[in-house]
Structure formats: C-alpha cells, structure tokens
C-alpha cells in the first residue's frame, strides 16, 4: 500500500538532487490542459453568441453570473475587477480535487501545489494592502498598540500557512482513505463499493474546500485592504 507521490520519468540532476516528473506534475498538466481547452472552446463559440441566450450560451452566462454574485458578496466595488483571479483559483482547485475521480492523483494533495496557491494569495493580500491603504498599511501592524507588532507579524505569516495546510490535509486524507479502501477490498468489489468514499471525499469535501479556500482568501484580502479601525 503506497499513497506517496511517485516519480514517473527521470529528467536531470541538479547538483546532488535528481529532478523527476512526478505524478503531481502530470496531473497538474492534465488539469491545465482541460481548463485551457475549455477556455479556448468558449472563446471560439463567443462569436456565435446572441442577445437572447440559448443552449450552450446559457451555461456560460450562468457561470459568469455566479462568479459575479460570488465576488459582489465578498469584495467591495473597487475590487470587483480582481474577481477573475479568485474565480481562476476556485476553478483550478475544484478541477484538481475532482481529478481524483478519474484515476489521477489530485494535484492539491501535494503540499507544493497548495503552498504555491497560498503564496499567490499572500502576494495578493499584501500587494492590495499596500496599493489601497498606503501609510495605513504599515500602521495596521502596530494596532491597537506597538506591543502587538510581533503578534501581528506572526498572524500574517500564519494565514497562508493555514490556507495551504487546510486544503492539503483535507484532500490528502481523502486520497489515503480511498487507497486504503481499494487495497482492503478484493478486486471483484472494487467497482461499486468505493463509490461511497468518492462521493464524500471527492465531490463533497472537494467542492467545500475549493469554496472555503476562495472565500477565505477573499476575506483576508478585504481585511488587509480596508481600514477596519475606522
């Protein structure tokens, strides 16, 4: 029974470390290919869209309206143009979590992927904070008193860490439990019985964690870019 990240193809050595194409990289490429192909397909169909939507156009417009409502609920007016970033995060995490159902190892069950996503959110939080708050951004570290400076800095560093670990832990636990169930059952029963675990760990937890990651990153960005003490 093995549920760690497997090395697939050897690439080259860098100093003493050997660089491999791992399962995570392959799964990320497949997820990226699916998303990019879908985007290109929608872009090509965009020319034949009409004023009154029918069929395929309905689905796309529903998706875009969902995204705009989602962004409007959590961000303020100025930030609405950054909705695409958060929607991209949401779609990528959701597709990665669901890729576990197609026999891939979900890219989000690797700490490197979730860490990269959390670093992006970290840059977004502080970039938007500096751009919108300017002097008040530095002042927000010594609120309510100067004594709170180390606590505030630790709090800022803990945000991306907890975002990364939450997503990683939830998806990895699903992967481990699914692997254990598959190894426990004889081959004859492997077709129907593990579906229960997939419904819970991939469909329910996957969607919930994608939602939670996006909404929490929106909340963190808003928290740092608006003055909560005024």
């Amino acid at each position, binding site marked *: 029974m093995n549920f*760690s990240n497997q090395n697939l193809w050897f690439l080259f050595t860098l100093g003493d470390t050997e660089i491999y194409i791992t399962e995570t990289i392959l799964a990320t490429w497949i997820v990226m290919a699916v998303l990019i192909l879908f985007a290109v397909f929608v872009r090509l169909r965009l020319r034949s869209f009409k004023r009154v939507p029918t069929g395929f156009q309905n689905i796309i417009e529903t998706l875009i309206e969902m995204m705009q409502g989602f962004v409007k609920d959590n961000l303020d007016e100025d930030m609405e143009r950054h909705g695409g970033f958060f929607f991209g995060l949401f779609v990528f995490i959701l597709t990665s979590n669901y890729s576990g159902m197609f026999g891939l190892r979900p890219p989000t069950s690797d700490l490197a992927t979730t860490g990269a996503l959390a670093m992006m959110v970290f840059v977004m939080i502080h970039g938007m904070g500096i751009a919108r708050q300017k002097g008040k951004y530095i002042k927000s570290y010594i609120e309510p008193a100067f004594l709170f400076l180390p606590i505030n800095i630790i709090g800022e560093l803990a945000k991306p860490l*907890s975002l990364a*670990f*939450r997503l*990683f*832990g*939830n998806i*990895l*636990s699903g992967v481990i439990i699914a692997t254990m169930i598959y190894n426990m059952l004889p081959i004859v029963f492997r077709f129907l019985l593990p579906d229960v675990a997939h419904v819970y760990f991939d469909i329910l937890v996957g969607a*919930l*964690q994608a*939602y*939670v990651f996006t*909404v*929490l990153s929106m*909340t963190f960005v808003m928290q740092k870019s608006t003055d909560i003490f005024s």
Partner: protein
Amino acid sequence: MDPKAFVLGLSALSAGICTLSGLGSGYGQGLAAGQAAEAVGRQPEARGAIMSTMLIGCALAETCSIYGMIVALILLMANPFMVFFN
C-alpha cells in the same frame, strides 16, 4: 530490545495520540451546526447566508485537527526520529 524498534513503536503510538486533536474540532463543529440549525429555525429566509457562514466557521475549526493529522502523517511516513541511528 532493538532501539530502532522502540523508536518506531513509540512513533506509531504518538501518531495515534495525534488523532485526539479531532476531539476539539469535532465538538466545535457540532456546536456550530447546532446553532446554525437553531438560527435557520428562527429565520428560515436567511438560510443561504447562515449556511455559508457556518461552512466557513466549520472549515476554520477543522484546521487544528488537520494540523494533528499532518503531525501524525509525518511521524508515520517520514520517521523523523530515525536520523539519530544513521
């Protein structure tokens, strides 16, 4: 006794103890869900807002037990205490 076996056994035992971190977050999530059910019963039209707030709160409460799980996984998979024998 072989000291390696002793360290490995205690690592497995402590990984089991790490899962006790689920106690607190389970209690907290149950509390949040109960309060949310009460709130929906009192004001059924605010169901969507209550649900999304509860889900965010539950996910935040879950973080501590996820930390416990990660420590347990490190103890089981990476065997950090075996470096003293090389």
